[in-house]
């Protein structure tokens, strides 16, 4: 799973207009040491088992502008895919609420049913389901994440760094 971290850290990974900002941003990597159970697994309880209901989840996904359901917590992600989402959020300087589904099987099943999405992590912005790791990574690469965060009133650190650089460049030209 280090592959995703490697992709994140690879020079030239960012769209060109973000390259300067990205390099200026220190990136911490947290090694995901446990095996990743990214999808529904064979040990999942039968459908009759208690799951967190829809109305609870509707409230839960709105407790912050960005809400992440993941395996482990942001300090210690227990899955490479969850780790990748944590790293992306860190680069953009996003504050978010994180819920560890490994601590709560009912939540794990509940959120999957709520979004009709088979895998964890799951990311919500402004209460809207945005996607999982692949989608976040792609939005990060394309710059769409900056836009999406902006819609929610969050200014990405990458954008701030880019703007500071542009101002500096403009000054230097004078």
């Amino acid at each position, binding site marked *: 799973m280090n592959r995703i971290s490697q992709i994140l850290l690879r020079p030239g990974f960012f769209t060109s207009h973000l390259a300067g900002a990205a390099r200026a941003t220190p990136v911490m990597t947290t090694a995901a040491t446990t095996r990743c159970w990214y999808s529904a697994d064979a040990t999942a309880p039968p459908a009759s088992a208690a799951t967190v209901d829809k109305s609870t989840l509707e409230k839960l996904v709105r407790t912050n502008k960005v809400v992440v359901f993941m395996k482990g917590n942001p300090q210690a992600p227990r899955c490479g895919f969850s780790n990748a989402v944590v790293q992306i959020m860190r680069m953009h300087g996003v504050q978010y609420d994180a819920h560890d589904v490994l601590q709560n099987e009912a939540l794990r099943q509940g959120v999957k049913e709520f979004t009709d999405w088979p895998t964890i992590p799951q990311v919500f912005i402004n209460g809207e389901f945005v996607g999982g790791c*692949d989608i976040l990574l792609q939005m990060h690469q394309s710059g769409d994440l900056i836009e999406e965060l902006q819609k929610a009133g969050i200014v990405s650190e990458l954008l701030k760094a880019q703007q500071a650089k542009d101002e500096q460049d403009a000054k230097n030209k004078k």
Partner: protein
Amino acid sequence: MSSECKYDAKHLEDKLRARFEPSHVEVTDDSDGCGAKFSVIIVSKEFVGQSLLKKHRLVNQSLAEELKSIHAFSQKAYTPEEWEKVQQQQQ
């Protein structure tokens, strides 16, 4: 567990081909043949005009049965036009 090893890359590829008639499809088994971990690249006209989330949902839905027992699944779904751009960037 034998239930973990139900599917191989060929099975997923065949299923994606039948569903999306892709112009390009790559299924990689990252689990050394165990069938628990796959990554997919799929390029299809079916994705034209669909949001990123919708594209991924379509792929997830087409493999819903398989995803129940696949533990790690990563996908990249592109329209032919997007795929061309991706390839240009990689050069």
